[in-house]
């Protein structure tokens, strides 16, 4: 749907009924403000000022159609399917009666970024609860207007009917036509609707469009007079390490079909861009660009561990309990280790792309983009273009994979700037090389120093962690340890760091879970048993048991150089994950083959098992990539990974059978999200399996054949 808000309101008619939902987790508040405001365009703007609290809309039109609006985006995680499943079931309407409008800044309120596995848990579930409040509200309104008791009415097929007059269903628009109603929902407080969600296993709602090639991503848009554009790739990390000194664009401009090749002042830094009607000619012109860039002042060499230590600054204490030194002193055994991860990148299939059109002398700017947070993209574009936000209209499109990379991504503001410069609609399409080198945001290398003390009964007494990175996520809630000290240090880098799927949970969990196995070994315990003894939540024990049963741990007879490893993770959204991996290692080549993965997740109500399973399997496959292959080739001056084949991501032949079980014991009821969770424990599970298989502990990702041969040679 591509309409302005005014057009949209006109199209559904002024007799429609609008609910605006305020989402307030943890407030204990749930209410419908029973002072409906008259529905007209001007007033609606005030009532639904999306800069404040009302974050989702549900609109009932006169034909019984329902539209829902949110700024959260479909990134492949299945949000559209989840929202469709929840709202159609809650309102008892068929799928064709529902329109899901995502990420259009003129239509949708701003409810934050699509990240942190939070959209199903927050937005999806608030729609579900809101729909049930609306049902009650409509029955109440119908009772008032028909002068009957509420017991004589029931909610059915998106409307209300008198039980004794089953033929006629009163549509919501008839009851509250021309009104707008505000409501507040607390998803944490609400579980008393008596409405159990049932997964009917609907198809991914975009399925047919996807398999027929008709789903339009932003790169598929074509505007009259549109030019392709792309950036010249600087040789060094741009703009942190280099400036453009001079350029010779004569040859580039001579390429047939090229409209313009120019230097532009654009944040970040001065850059060179080529425009042409055909992308082919943009590419050719960029190959002919000659340019000089300042050589970075910092050393080219990037010794990850040394640099992290040298640049580390203490940030804060993440957790402090008891007296860690006394706890360690009282321990039967202590283990001290250091773990390291490498810089990785995201390598989503759709490179950064945006289409922009500037009209009315800059007073009307439209940007089409696949991005996780269109409203933030709009704010930043307006800021950069120095225009009021209302001049900018960002239209969110389906995204060809984001994974944390496309959150108000630079492309969303570069495209309108370029369109303004060249005076034509522009499709800015990053080449794969630019995606690797210019969009230099990498998942950071992390370093962890860990010391853990354990008693003779296998109970951990004390743990000290120094973690060097940006966030320190994932160190909490997994194990019950009386004496804990976790300190966070930052490390500055010569390039920009990324938000990426799993954030620093990934690195921390690899280190902690590898370390736990070594502590278990020192104390003389089996790693499965050791975790059962030490976990903080009993729900973890159920998941560990489930994984042990699935993978057949208790009767496991490994072949030569085979082993099983386990890792657990607690993710911020109260999501629990346990992964068991079986590997076979070839001692001669050093190659690791992941033979099987069994995983159990405690993630609350699963809205759609099909999309959730796809997402969880995909996450586990990401974990395999981080464990075995992924490392961007980078130094202090530049990344020199330029091709997908240079940056090994998991392929068909890398993927083992993956069994997944869903549990709901920890905090039953609401869905809790699962996008990031599956990656996190997978790496530790593989590391621990390798350790069990060949007796070698790997202290740094990725576990490449070279690193394993080296570790074997050294042991």
């Amino acid at each position: 749907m591509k309409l302005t808000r005014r057009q949209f309101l006109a199209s559904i008619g002024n007799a429609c009924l609008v609910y605006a939902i305020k989402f307030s987790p943890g407030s204990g508040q749930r209410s419908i403000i029973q002072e409906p405001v008259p529905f007209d365009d001007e007033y609606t703007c005030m009532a639904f000022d999306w800069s404040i609290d009302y974050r989702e809309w549900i609109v009932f039109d006169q034909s019984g159609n329902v539209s829902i609006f949110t700024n959260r985006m479909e990134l492949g995680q299945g949000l559209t399917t989840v929202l469709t499943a929840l709202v159609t079931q809650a309102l008892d309407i068929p799928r064709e009666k529902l329109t899901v409008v995502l990420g259009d800044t003129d239509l949708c309120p701003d409810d934050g970024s699509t990240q942190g596995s939070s959209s199903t848990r927050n937005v999806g579930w608030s729609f579900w609860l809101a729909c049930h409040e609306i049902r009650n509200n409509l029955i109440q309104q119908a009772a008032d207007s028909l002068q009957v008791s509420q017991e004589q009415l029931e909610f059915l097929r998106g409307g209300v009917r008198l039980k004794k007059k089953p033929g006629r269903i009163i549509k919501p628009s008839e009851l509250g036509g021309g009104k707008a109603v505000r409501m507040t929902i607390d998803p944490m407080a609400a579980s008393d609707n008596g409405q159990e969600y049932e997964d009917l296993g609907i198809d991914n709602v975009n399925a047919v469009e996807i398999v027929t090639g008709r789903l339009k991503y932003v790169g598929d848009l074509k505007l009259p007079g549109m030019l392709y554009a792309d950036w010249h790739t600087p040789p060094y990390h741009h703009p942190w390490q280099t400036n453009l000194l001079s350029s010779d664009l004569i040859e580039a401009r001579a390429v047939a079909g090229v409209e313009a090749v120019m230097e532009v002042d654009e944040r970040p830094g001065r850059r060179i861009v080529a425009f042409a009607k055909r992308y082919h000619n943009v590419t050719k012109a960029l190959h002919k660009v000659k340019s000089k860039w300042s050589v970075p002042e910092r050393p080219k060499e990037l010794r990850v561990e040394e640099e992290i230590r040298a640049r580390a600054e203490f940030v804060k204490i993440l957790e402090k309990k008891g007296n860690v030194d006394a706890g360690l002193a009282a321990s039967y055994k202590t283990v001290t280790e250091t773990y390291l991860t490498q810089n990785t990148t995201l390598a989503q299939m759709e490179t950064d792309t945006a289409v922009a059109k500037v009209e009315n002398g800059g007073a009307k700017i439209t940007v089409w983009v696949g991005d996780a947070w269109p409203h933030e993209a709009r704010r930043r574009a307006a800021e950069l273009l120095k225009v009021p936000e209302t001049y900018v209209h960002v239209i969110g499109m389906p995204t060809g994979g984001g994974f944390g990379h496309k959150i108000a991504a630079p492309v969303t503001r570069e495209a309108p700037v370029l369109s303004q410069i060249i005076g034509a609609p522009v499709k800015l399409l990053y080449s794969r090389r630019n995606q690797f080198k210019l969009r230099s945001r990498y998942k950071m290398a992390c370093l962890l120093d860990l010391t853990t003390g354990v008693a003779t009964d296998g109970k951990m007494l004390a743990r000290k962690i120094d973690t060097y990175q940006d966030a320190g996520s994932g160190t909490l809630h997994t194990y019950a340890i009386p004496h804990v000290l976790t300190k966070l240090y930052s490390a500055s880098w010569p390039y920009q760091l990324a938000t990426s799927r799993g954030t620093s949970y990934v690195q921390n969990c690899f280190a902690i879970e590898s370390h736990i196995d070594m502590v278990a070994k020192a104390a003389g315990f089996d790693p499965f048993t050791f975790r059962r003894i030490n976990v903080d939540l009993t729900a973890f024990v159920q998941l560990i048991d489930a994984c042990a049963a699935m993978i057949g741990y208790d009767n496991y007879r490994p072949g030569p150089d085979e082993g099983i490893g386990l890792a657990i993770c607690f993710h911020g959204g109260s999501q629990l994950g346990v992964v068991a991996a079986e590997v076979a290692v070839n001692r001669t080549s050093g190659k690791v083959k992941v033979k099987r993965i069994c995983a159990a997740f405690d993630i609350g109500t699963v809205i759609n098992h099909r999309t959730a399973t796809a997402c969880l399997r995909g996450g586990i496959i990401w974990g395999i990539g981080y464990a075995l292959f992924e490392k961007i080739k980078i130094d202090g001056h530049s990344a020199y990974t330029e091709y997908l084949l240079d940056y090994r991501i998991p392929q068909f032949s890398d993927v083992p059978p993956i069994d997944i079980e869903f549990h709901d014991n920890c905090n039953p009821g609401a869905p809790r999200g699962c996008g990031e969770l599956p990656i996190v424990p997978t790496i530790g599970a593989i590391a621990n399996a390798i350790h069990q298989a060949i007796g070698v502990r790997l202290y740094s990702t990725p576990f490449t054949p070279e690193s394993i041969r080296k570790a074997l040679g050294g042991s």
Partner: protein
Amino acid sequence: MAEESLREIIDSGMSICYEVMGFRQRSIFKLFQGFPVLSEKYFTLDVNGRQRRVKVEPEEPLLWILRDDLNLTGTKFGCGFGECGACSVLIDGVARRSCQVQTQYVSSGQKIVTIEGLGTADNLSPVQKAFVDFTAFQCGFCTPGMIINATALLSINPNPTKEEIIAAMDFNLCRCGSYLNIIEAIASLANTEE
């Protein structure tokens, strides 16, 4: 492998296995920098059963003709180097990476089939139907290429084993990690043939 024959393979747009990737990058660069400046010419292409006449530079990859001139945008740009497979199309029944096929090397007699030519919403091809049934995608960006490659595989080998499916599909990349679902979708078609 000699660089000569490698160049032939690259020119022909066929996928290349890992063993030669070291050569491959250099070769691609040479090709790019060695392009002569050619003027636009008319070409007639047989796409999805229709004769389409386009005026383009002879060395322009077929991918962009499909996407920009014929508006067949189901064929995706993922890398431009034949590495990911998102741009796969059938040329005379063989899956080829259209970013590596220069338009001048497609003869008017060759039949090109894109994802749009396999089936429609009301009449999905068996592979498309299986991809829906097995949720064999997440973001969907690599899916057209996956379906084209699976279609080519099943036309040569209607009953592939799991190992054969993996071998045939291995160089099509899916970052969301829908590999298992894709294998299941293709395997479901193999079973019905038995």
